[in-house]
């Protein structure tokens, strides 16, 4: 079953085409990778799915419903959350609070209830904290619960972004370069985490990544963008041997040597 469909998605910035006519179908519970050189339009593509940008033309369908024209927070409420390439944490809030913000749309508490100290609202908040702790545990940040998010190390910040995103209980999770800045060991942990999330959290994952090891290892399918155009898509093996991809991205050397 296709959970997400992207049809002819095009974005222009004042005459410059950032992405043009991108089509993509994502099966439920699949892991899809979007690769391509820097500046190929991958992040713009993510921004359109999450409504940070509105596409110039084309359509995005989640479970058959169009997302075009929605506000970012509505897209999130529909079940798509994301992480960011240049980390966007709430730096002056604690790690736990960051995850709690992620849970925002699923919390049934209301501020008037909070002021009146209604017992069931208190219960919701208490449970939320426990759940948030569980999530932190899950992404391996249980020792930084009270730390300010801005003070975490780079890799930990990336994991917190993932934790925050899954706290929103997304149907589709977009990861923008989750392994950037991680060493091989951390990358391996991340790879396992992504695998695990797919099975445990029943989530569909789309990721942008440059680390080919990771991409080839976990993706069910790969889409390759170059200059805003989709130049190839398919299973990892197909992509690995696609000439166009090799020329545009992996480097010509890979052909002769590979």
């Amino acid at each position, binding site marked *: 079953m296709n959970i997400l469909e992207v049809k002819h998605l095009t974005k222009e*910035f004042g005459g410059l085409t950032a992405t043009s006519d991108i089509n993509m179908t994502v099966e439920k519970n699949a892991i899809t990778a979007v690769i391509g050189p820097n500046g190929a339009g991958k*992040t713009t593509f993510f*921004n359109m799915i999450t409504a*940070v*940008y509105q596409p110039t033309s084309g359509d995005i369908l989640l479970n058959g419903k169009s997302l075009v024209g929605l506000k970012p927070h509505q897209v999130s409420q529909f079940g798509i959350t994301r992480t*960011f390439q*240049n980390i966007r944490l709430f730096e002056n809030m604690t790690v736990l609070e960051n995850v709690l913000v992620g849970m925002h749309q699923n919390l049934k508490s209301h501020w008037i209830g909070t002021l009146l100290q209604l017992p069931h609202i208190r219960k919701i908040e208490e449970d939320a904290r426990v759940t948030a702790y569980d999530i932190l545990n899950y992404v391996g940040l249980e020792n930084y619960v009270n730390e300010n998010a801005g003070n975490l190390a780079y890799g930990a910040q990336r994991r917190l972004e993932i934790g925050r995103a899954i706290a929103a209980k997304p149907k589709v999770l977009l990861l923008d370069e989750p392994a950037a800045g991680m060493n091989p060991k951390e990358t391996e942990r991340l790879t396992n985490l992504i695998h695990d999330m797919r099975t445990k959290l029943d989530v569909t994952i789309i990721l942008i990544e440059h680390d080919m090891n990771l991409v080839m290892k976990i993706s069910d399918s790969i889409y390759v963008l170059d200059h805003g155009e989709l130049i190839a898509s398919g299973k990892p093996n197909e992509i690995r041997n696609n000439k166009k991809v090799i020329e545009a991205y992996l480097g010509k050397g890979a052909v002769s040597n590979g």
Partner: protein
Amino acid sequence: MLAHIIQNLPQVLIDGLTLGVVYAVVAIGYTMVYGILELINFAHGDVFMTGAFMGAIVLFLLMGMGFLAALPAILVFIIVIVIAAIATGLLGVGIERVAYRPLRKKNAPKLIALITSIGISFVLEDLVRFIAELKTGNYIVTAPPMFNHKFTLNLHSALPFFNNATFQSSFLLVLIVTIIMLIALDLFVNKTKWGMAMRAVAQDRDTASLMTINVNRVISVTFFIGSALGGATGVLFMIQYGTIDPYIGFVLGIKAFTAAVLGGIGNIRGAMFGGVMLGLLEMFAASNLSIITHGAMGAEYKDVFAFIILILVLIFKPEGLFGKAVVEKV
């Protein structure tokens, strides 16, 4: 009703232009600093005020030494405006050194720099008031009258639907000097090496520093020019209106800032346009609001009128009339 408004139009234009060019030059000071540091320099209005007082001091000194009577007025004026401009320019550089540079080094949030600028503004207002009061017992300072020859623009005989308009020679002086300043600034910014450096720093500070540009020095120069222009305008203001007090900068500063935002903050030509436009609008509102509203709203609503126009402009064009929309990179 319309006839009334049209009759008065030449006079309103002259008065609006006088006030508008003053707004324009002060607005440029805001815009230059904003363009380069993305900081609203709230103290700029008070730099303008300090310039007016420095001009007054020089003028009184010259008068005390008897130069005022001995020299032609225009020469006295040039001496006064040049000295005041240099002094306020240096003041601006000093303010940047003391209050903004340390924050830049610390990478402090922008709001903090805004707070220091409010602080500087308080200090300047009070210091000037304090000195003026200590000297004269009254902080309202009246300059000796200069350039008060009266002209009448005899429009009525040629164009009977207009009334005659009058102005003083100081109006011509203000207009000519501000236009010279605006042209000189425009040439400086667009044609000289330092102007180029300023634009480069405004566009991309990090990269500019890679081009052997001493960013701090460029910022100092920017503050010097912006403040010197402000100070010179202060002198013009003193000559045009004759009376200054330590709070003129506050009142005028808010308006000039509004003008800068109206034109698109960070854009020098936008500030010029915004200033002149605001001056004209205000003058138009002051002389015609009660005619238009049949007395329901009088001249006292002119500021409301100005602010509402600003808010409307910002709602429909959040980056101002001449500003460029900045797309945040995600």
